[in-house]
């Protein structure tokens, strides 16, 4: 063969070799990672093992919130025969909703996707109906959804579970919000080799990370007391024609919340259809001017500082009192000259309280507000707690001291008021209120220990104020409604509502705060009614409701007179 033919042949072999090597370089190096990933996706399956969300249990371990079977409904678009007919059949199975059929049709008609989500958290019964329709291309993926055996009871306390921006379950408000991390747990992962038909290969490679179930919460909440309180509060709102109302009951020894109810409330199952202004628990997030119920705290400060004694007499209680251009009057415009401190509380005498306030002075008054927890969050384990800000001491003038001494011109939340009175009930200790008593994991129960924040008053002062409150209940304007035979320490309140820089002439917040039995308190309770129309007075609305609830508690807990 001539030499040029040999060279041409060598050259063509060389060229072929270069082409083959280039191609191999392209597939093995440049596209190598992509092909490896595709091969792995064919060989391996990755499954996320969802972690069940923790339950919320009452003190008797009954589930107030638990989980039930639900499904995610999806469509594989390539298998949908007729989008319009499929959408029509699906819409008939779901609860009626505006534009549902149109929405389904829109999703099923998409050309740019292989898979579409149709609905989440669908009940099993609806999924069974969809399956019975025999529609092609419709599939289900198991998930869980929250279930409330007691319906909307304790809705404000519990909160609800919605979705975050990534579509994952997220707790909002109340306990679901505060304890979201504990409740959600951690999903597990299972990565293993599979056969062509998708079955796992046992001797193949496997990586398993077990899911960690969410922790359960065991509350201080007494389910039967909560149910009774909600029924009584609902009846009370109707009877007294009030716009809104709340009841909170606390254990004076632990700070545990035995019951907490407010209306209007909402249904946590259908939260998306509810007014979102109702989501926030007003007991921990809405403030009000407390009025006369605040007097027990002011008197506690005065007695504790020894600036007044129970039988000291008021020298200014002869009539209305002018302070810095304002006139302070009593609620009934009756005046009791030379009243003792005991009688000032008994008559709920605003003028007498200005006398007590002056005796304390702005500095010490402000200090006691802080000690009682006013102007600070209580630390209760509910997501939406807020506290109104206390104006700085330097900005206080005489009229501020005067009005604050009878509970006006100062704002607190119901939980702050309850926490403060609990300090009187338990001998002087300010406790951190808590809804959760224990957190249950797979292996153990972690007790949430009661926390004493500080001592506010000494035990002698607490006993004196208790007796003043018992006297107020026995001889004050609410005495007609008090259950016979029981020593109840309490105080009525009727606070005017500030609107646009002045106080409304007719609208009030009626309240009653107290604890019983006075000598060995089992509970502290605050009842508030907003704008009662049958009567503006706390003694005629909130007080009878308080006593009505207390009577039930006495019977259920076997507390004898």
């Amino acid at each position, binding site marked *: 063969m001539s030499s040029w033919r040999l060279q041409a042949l060598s050259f063509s072999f060389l060229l072929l070799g270069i082409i083959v090597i280039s191609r191999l370089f392209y597939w093995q190096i440049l596209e190598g990672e992509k092909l490896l990933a595709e091969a792995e996706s064919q060989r391996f399956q990755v499954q996320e093992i969802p972690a069940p969300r923790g339950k919320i249990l009452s003190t008797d371990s*009954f*589930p107030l919130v*638990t989980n039930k079977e639900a499904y995610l409904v999806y469509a594989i678009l390539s298998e949908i025969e007729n989008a319009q007919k499929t959408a029509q059949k699906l819409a008939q199975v779901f609860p009626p909703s505006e534009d549902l059929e149109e929405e389904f049709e829109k999703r099923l008609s998409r050309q740019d996707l292989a898979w579409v989500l149709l609905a989440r958290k669908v009940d099993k019964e609806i999924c069974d109906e969809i399956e019975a329709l025999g529609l092609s291309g419709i599939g289900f993926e198991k998930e869980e959804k929250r279930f409330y055996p*007691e319906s909307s009871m304790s809705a404000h306390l519990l909160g609800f579970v919605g979705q975050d921006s990534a579509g994952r379950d997220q707790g909002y408000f109340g306990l679901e919000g505060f304890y979201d991390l504990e409740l959600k747990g951690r999903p597990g992962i299972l990565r293993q080799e599979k*056969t062509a038909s998708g*079955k*796992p290969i*046992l001797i193949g490679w496997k990586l398993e990370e077990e899911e960690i179930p969410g922790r359960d919460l065991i509350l201080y909440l007494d389910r039967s007391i909560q149910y009774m309180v909600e029924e009584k509060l609902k009846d009370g709102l109707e009877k007294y024609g009030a716009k809104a109302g709340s009841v909170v009951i606390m254990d004076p020894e632990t700070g545990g919340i035995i019951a907490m109810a407010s209306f209007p409330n909402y249904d946590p199952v259908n939260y998306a259809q509810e007014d979102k202004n109702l989501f926030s628990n007003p007991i921990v997030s809405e403030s009000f001017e407390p009025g006369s119920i605040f007097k027990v705290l002011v008197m506690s400060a005065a007695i504790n500082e020894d600036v007044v004694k129970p039988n000291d007499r008021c020298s200014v209680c002869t009539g209305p009192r002018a302070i810095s251009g304002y006139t302070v009057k009593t609620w009934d415009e009756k005046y009791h000259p030379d009243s003792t401190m005991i009688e000032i509380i008994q008559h709920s005498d605003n003028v007498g309280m200005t006398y007590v306030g002056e005796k304390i002075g702005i500095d010490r008054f402000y200090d006691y507000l802080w000690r009682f927890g006013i102007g600070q969050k209580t630390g209760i384990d509910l997501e939406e707690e807020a506290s109104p800000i206390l104006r700085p001491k330097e900005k206080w003038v005489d009229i501020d001291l005067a009005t604050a001494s009878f509970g006006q011109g100062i704002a607190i939340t119901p939980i702050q008021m309850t926490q403060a009175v609990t300090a009187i009930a338990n001998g002087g200790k300010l406790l951190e209120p808590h809804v959760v008593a224990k957190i249950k994991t797979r292996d153990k129960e972690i007790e949430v220990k009661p926390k004493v924040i500080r001592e506010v008053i000494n035990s002698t002062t607490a006993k004196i104020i208790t007796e003043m409150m018992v006297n107020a209940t026995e001889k004050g304007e609410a005495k007609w409604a008090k259950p016979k035979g029981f020593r109840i320490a309490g105080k009525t309140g009727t606070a005017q509502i500030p609107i646009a820089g002045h106080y409304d002439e007719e609208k009030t917040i009626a309240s009653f705060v107290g604890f019983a039995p006075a000598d060995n308190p089992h509970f502290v309770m605050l009842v508030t009614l907003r704008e009662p129309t049958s009567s503006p007075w706390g003694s005629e609305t909130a007080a009878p409701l308080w006593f009505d609830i207390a*009577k039930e508690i006495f019977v259920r807990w076997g507390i*004898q007179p």
Partner: protein
Amino acid sequence: MMKKTKILKNNQRAIFLIVILVAVFFLARIFIANQLATSGKLVDELKEETNRLVRESSRLEKEIVELSSLSRVSSEAGRLGFKKATVVSLTPEIPVALR
């Protein structure tokens, strides 16, 4: 000469035994691996059965709590004719004979 033949024969026997053993273990491994490889289907079935039982247990638990909820008990009591006690008086002493 005879001694050398004997040693050779013993060596051959030893090699033969080793080969047999290796072959047996090799076959055993193949057999076990085959059994395990095809057990994936059984595992899937057992997992499905476990999931079914867990779902059933969850359904029964849901039914129990629904039936024992206070709202249901209250409405059932009303339907059965029970009425709330209107007069309840509490006595200072425990109303039982102690002796």
